């Protein structure tokens, strides 16, 4: 058998880890270094591995001259609202599926999950005329609702899995204490489900934050544009490609989500691993 404590194994292990690390972090490294280079250095035929002359011009331009702040605000509004609504809806749906027995429970759940089987682009073809029909095109609400359509099934399933593990005896105890189902859910179940709730919120938030296709199609006017299409159309359009500016702007707008992750990662990991060990 291969001895995992041998020197060779350690070298192979370390080497593999370095390769994976390089593969994962090199794009980020490239993004940071590119944002700090001036155009002359950026467009050299032989690219430089690190900025020979560091400049913060790209950052300054992104903040002062582009509509970055507008796009950021729009993204925060749409992503935050869709994540919040999605989490609330998934909470009730997940709890209902996990703890109540009623006719059609399983088929409804499967039906919801089956929505995930369609490519997102395909669903856009049917959603687009529908949105035009009900006047939701070029509205934040339209975008928020379409994000919910995609994130809700998985979010519901994630919370369903967690709620299924909440001991029935806990709910029975509260019922015997005189609590209504509504109160049991709000005063007992939700407070003990913070990690999965945070996980679902972050999942939904990331889903909409990272989206390009829907935000680009549903939103047409510039003042409602979210960060993805905003950056794309500002820096990488038909006429020019300002890679340095695009990198600096991308890093700036990634900051809030990275900060949120760092703050909430404890809950996120707990949520993802809930039930794995006793």
């Amino acid at each position, binding site marked *: 058998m291969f001895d995992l404590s041998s020197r060779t194994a350690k070298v192979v292990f370390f080497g593999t880890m370095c390769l994976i690390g390089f593969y994962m972090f090199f794009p980020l490294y490239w993004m940071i270094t590119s944002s700090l280079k001036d155009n002359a250095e950026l467009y050299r035929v032989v690219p430089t591995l690190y900025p020979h002359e560091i400049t913060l011009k790209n950052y300054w331009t992104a903040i002062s001259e582009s509509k970055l702040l507008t796009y950021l605000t729009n993204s925060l509004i749409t992503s935050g609202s869709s994540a919040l609504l999605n989490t609330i809806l998934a909470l009730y749906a997940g709890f209902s599926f996990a703890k109540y027995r009623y006719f059609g429970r399983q088929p409804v759940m499967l039906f919801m999950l089956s929505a995930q089987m369609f490519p997102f682009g395909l669903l856009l073809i049917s959603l687009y005329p529908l949105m035009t029909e009900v006047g939701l095109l070029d509205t934040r609400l339209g975008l928020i609702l379409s994000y919910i359509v995609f994130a809700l099934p998985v979010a519901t399933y994630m919370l369903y899995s967690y709620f299924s593990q909440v*001991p029935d005896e806990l709910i029975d105890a509260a*019922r015997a204490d005189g609590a209504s189902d509504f109160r049991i859910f709000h005063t007992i179940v939700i407070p003990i489900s913070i990690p999965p709730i945070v996980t679902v919120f972050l999942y939904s938030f990331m889903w909409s934050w990272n989206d390009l296709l829907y935000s680009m199609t549903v939103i047409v006017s510039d003042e409602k544009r979210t960060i993805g299409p905003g950056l794309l159309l500002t820096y990488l359009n038909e006429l020019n490609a300002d890679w340095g500016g695009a990198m600096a702007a991308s890093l700036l707008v990634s900051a809030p989500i990275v900060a949120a992750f760092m703050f909430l990662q404890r809950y996120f990991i707990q949520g993802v691993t809930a039930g794995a060990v006793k």
Partner: protein
Amino acid sequence: MAKLELKNIRKSFGSVDVLKGIDLMVEDGEFVAFVGPSGCGKSTLLRLICGLDEITSGQMAIDGELVNDVPPAKRGIAMVFQSYALYPHMTVAENMGYALRLAGTPKQEIAERVNKAAKKLRIDTYLERKPRQLSGGQRQRVAIGRAIVREPRIFLFDEPLSNLDAALRVEMRIEIARMKETLGTTMIYVTHDQIEAMTLADKIVVLNAGRVEQVGSPLDLYNKPVNRFVAGFIGSPKMNFLKLGARKGEGAFAVPGGEVRLPRNLSSAPAEIGIRPEHVELVNRGAADSLAGTVTITEHLGSDTYAYVALDGSEEMFVVRLSGDRAVKRNEPIGVHVDPAMLHVFSADGQSIASARPVALEAA
């Protein structure tokens, strides 16, 4: 305190009948234990009494008032769950006062009642802790405290000690016995542990496959089981059963290892006998009134020794309970002395047609 009356209680889950007509009367202040094998319906019955599940048919009354449709909190019943079921995000005090808070009891009164119950259970120094900061025994005390605080008419316990280790179980058993004495409230206790049932209960209800097999005092069930099921279920180690073979003269029947004499005037034809391990003795092979066999396994528990004997002509083990200092050699050919007065006799349908008469009772 309250009187509980169950009349023909049935419970079905879909097409499965879990309880098939339970009739039971629990008197004021009585401690009743429900025992039975897994899946016999004892926990289901407890949940019906609590109001957590709906009765399919039948009538349930507390102090003469029909409570079939009364919600759990309005029945004046408190339940202690097997897994404690403490609210993990609340402190001990909040856990104990939750029901009172829901009932709109003033804060001052909640605090007083929680403190009083906590002192009684010696958990008053942990009131601000969360359940995860407590040991198993302390958690169980909090679960009991949560029930006491409500000052219920009836306490329900669903295997409350089964998650505790052996030493803690004994300690908590004594705690519950003390609680029974001081509170005097009607208590219903589900357990699969016979020792708990025998030591705590005034009355034991033996359930099997959704029916009540027998209701009686612990000693009644031990001495006079009405059928083979109860005889086999009550007592540890369980009763030895021997199928009766050919008749060997007046009142005597062949059994593995020899023959036994049965009491006369039996109400119906005997088919099987039962003998408790503590009602037989090991004697020399060939002694009068003894069955021949060989000791195959011995278990030394200190206070007792169990000898597992293979009776001649039988592959089943016959258990004999001996005093702890009794030396028994493995593979030793021996005789098992059977006193006819200590025999339980069963008919072909498993009904008891003669019970053992313990010496003390006979003398009285």
